[in-house]
């Protein structure tokens, strides 16, 4: 019995080996190297001097780092709930039996296939003053006087709105597809029974659909939080982190420090701070999804 099991394990190992080698080489090894980096002054070209815990000491006193982490966190707060609510609403629309069903699915999902650069540049063109789509429409419907402009991209508050809106438009399709397929898994009999009992549409939504979506929502929430913490490219294109670095996320600061300012050691230290944050969140997700056994 034992030998049989061992043989099966060995076989599995052989099949897993190619993956494990690549994974070890390109993920585990860089991680270890990354830890090593945090103890050095390290440029793109070479390892310089051993600095011990200086990088860590510095990170805790560096306001820029904590501001950037706060910006990323702020974006998580902005994007996570909106990303979920919008995805559910869109899924509800697409799940209704109508001839437009396929059409909805396509148009809601299609922005997700764009690259981040395309999405971000579209955002720039839509929100820029004078010739941008949004201001032009506002002029047209006379909500904005002809000689006035809204500077969406250069006011911190408005810039966050633009970043969130663009990200929503661009990525909500993925969550939408997950919700849609979850909704289609809900057995029809339950709805039929509810209708026979005289339940209204709103009652059906709150009492049946939403509870069924709960486990999925938990998963999506955690995935979304982690994804939102890694926001970078669209902000880089739309505001460059400005004005006054007020929209600069931590990933941008890591990129700047490492690759522009040539200080990989310090950049690695910052990414480990972010790593700890994501680690706590991942642990939380693990704890939440496993607490009640196989709920989903």
């Amino acid at each position, binding site marked *: 019995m034992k030998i049989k099991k061992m043989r099966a394990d060995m076989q599995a190992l052989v099949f897993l080996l190619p993956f494990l080698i690549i994974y070890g080489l390109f*993920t*585990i090894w*860089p*991680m270890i190297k*990354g830890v090593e980096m945090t103890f050095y002054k390290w*440029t*793109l*070209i*070479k390892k310089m001097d051993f600095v011990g815990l200086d990088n860590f000491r510095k990170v805790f006193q560096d306001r820029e780092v904590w501001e950037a982490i706060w910006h990323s966190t702020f974006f998580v707060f902005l994007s996570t709930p909106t990303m979920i609510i919008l995805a559910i609403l869109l899924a509800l629309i697409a799940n209704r039996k109508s001839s437009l069903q396929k059409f909805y699915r396509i148009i809601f999902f299609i922005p997700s296939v764009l690259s981040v650069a395309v999405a971000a540049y579209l955002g720039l063109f839509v929100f*820029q*003053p*004078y*010739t*941008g789509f949004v201001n032009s429409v506002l002029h047209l419907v006379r909500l904005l006087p002809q000689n006035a*402009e809204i*500077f969406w991209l*250069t006011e911190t508050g408005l810039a966050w709105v633009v970043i969130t809106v663009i990200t929503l438009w661009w990525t909500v399709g993925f969550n939408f597809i997950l919700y849609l397929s979850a909704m289609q898994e809900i057995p029809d009999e339950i709805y039929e029974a509810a209708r026979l009992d005289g339940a209204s549409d709103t009652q059906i939504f709150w009492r049946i659909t939403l509870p069924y979506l709960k486990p999925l929502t938990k998963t999506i929430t955690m995935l979304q939080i*982690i994804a939102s913490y*890694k926001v*970078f490219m669209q902000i880089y294109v739309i505001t460059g982190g*400005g*004005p*006054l*670095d007020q929209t600069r996320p931590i*990933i941008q600061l*890591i*990129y*700047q420090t*490492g*690759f*522009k*300012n*040539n*200080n990989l050691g310090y*950049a690695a230290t910052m*990414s480990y701070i*972010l*790593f700890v944050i*994501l*680690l706590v*969140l*991942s*642990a939380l*997700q*693990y704890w939440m999804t*496993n607490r009640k056994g196989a709920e989903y």
Partner: protein
Amino acid sequence: MKKKIGRLALTLLLSFSTVLSACSGGSNEAVDNGSGEGKVTLSFWTLFDGGDGANMQTLVDEFNKSHPDIEVKNTKLAWGEYYTKLVTAVGNGNGPDIGISHSSRLPDLINQGVVTELDTPATDAGVDWSTYNQNLLDAVTVEGQHYAVPIDTHPFIMFYNKKLLKEAGLLGEDGKPILEQSADGFITFLQTLKEKLPAKTTPFALSNNNDDPYRLWWSLYSQLGGNDVVSDDLKSAAIDKEKGIKAADYIQKLYTEGYIKKNDPDFYKNFQSGTAAIIMTGVWTTGTWESTKGLEFGAMPIPKFYDQEATWGDSHTIVLPLTKDEDPAKRKAAMVFADWVADNGQVWAKAGHIPSKPSVLEKQEFKDLPYRSDYSEVASVVKFSKHSTKNAQIRDEAAFKFLNEVWMNKMTPADAMNNMETAIQKIVSE
């Protein structure tokens, strides 16, 4: 329990690996080192696109034709990633034989050991340094050693729309603007433009942030006699704040008093489509304006606002990156190429750049190019930044950042200078 921990570890690893991938840099390009019989093959990395890219390709093609024993292979990289790629490639031994560098980036590349000094191969190749513009040469010389061959300078100059200036009565008989060369004179000039031209016309096209207003500030600051923003030993911030404030205050007024369109998202197009009377930007746009149908324009140095003539500028140079073999034959051939490119500056000048060799300015082919001669004397008054390794960082993270706020009227010039000083100090003391 064991399984659980394993799965937990896996989740963590996955989440971490995505963080890493989010900030991974560029990849390496394959480099061909193959040398044929007696023929030296050189890989050459450039960061030029558009007109610049086409002109450089022409130069490379002509060089290869006229030099049967040398072949230069031109690889065009995106300029936004160029320096990062160059540094990492050289770092792992896959760098090119020849590269391009801005003179402002050179100190950083020297400091990191990415580029090598080139006096020996230059002597072998018979390069005569005295044939170059001294101001440009000073910008690539460190402790008496040459680190690059300048092929141009590309300063900040002024272009004007002849039709609009004429309409406002500001175009002289000679086709040049009627403009008193002083700070007040320039304001009067803009005021007249504003009054005489239709309301939709922008008197002065300029971006509302980053490069171009910074270049104008740097020019004015230098015209006032301001020191570089770092001290001679490059270890501390040394802004002459009073002069910096004066320059920033002047430019801020250009925005708040409506001579520059607020937050103009496309100030190049504004000038190009004939709805802006003047624009100040780099000479590299000359080629663009030339190829625009119906745009009658002129080019000139930026006005002399204050005591001394000065303007912002940078310079494209050819460098020898550190390579594994440091083959003397290759290095010599590279210098032959670099000097030849500088000698043929009339081709490079098509985009608008000012050639680095005064002798090129005398060539008929150069003189036949319109506009260039109107501003070529600027090469000698370009105020380059000091040889600091932190030039790019100072510009992006100290100067742009706070000056942008001044242009948006959200920060006083005095606050901006104080903030800049603190930020520069932080950058140089790292």
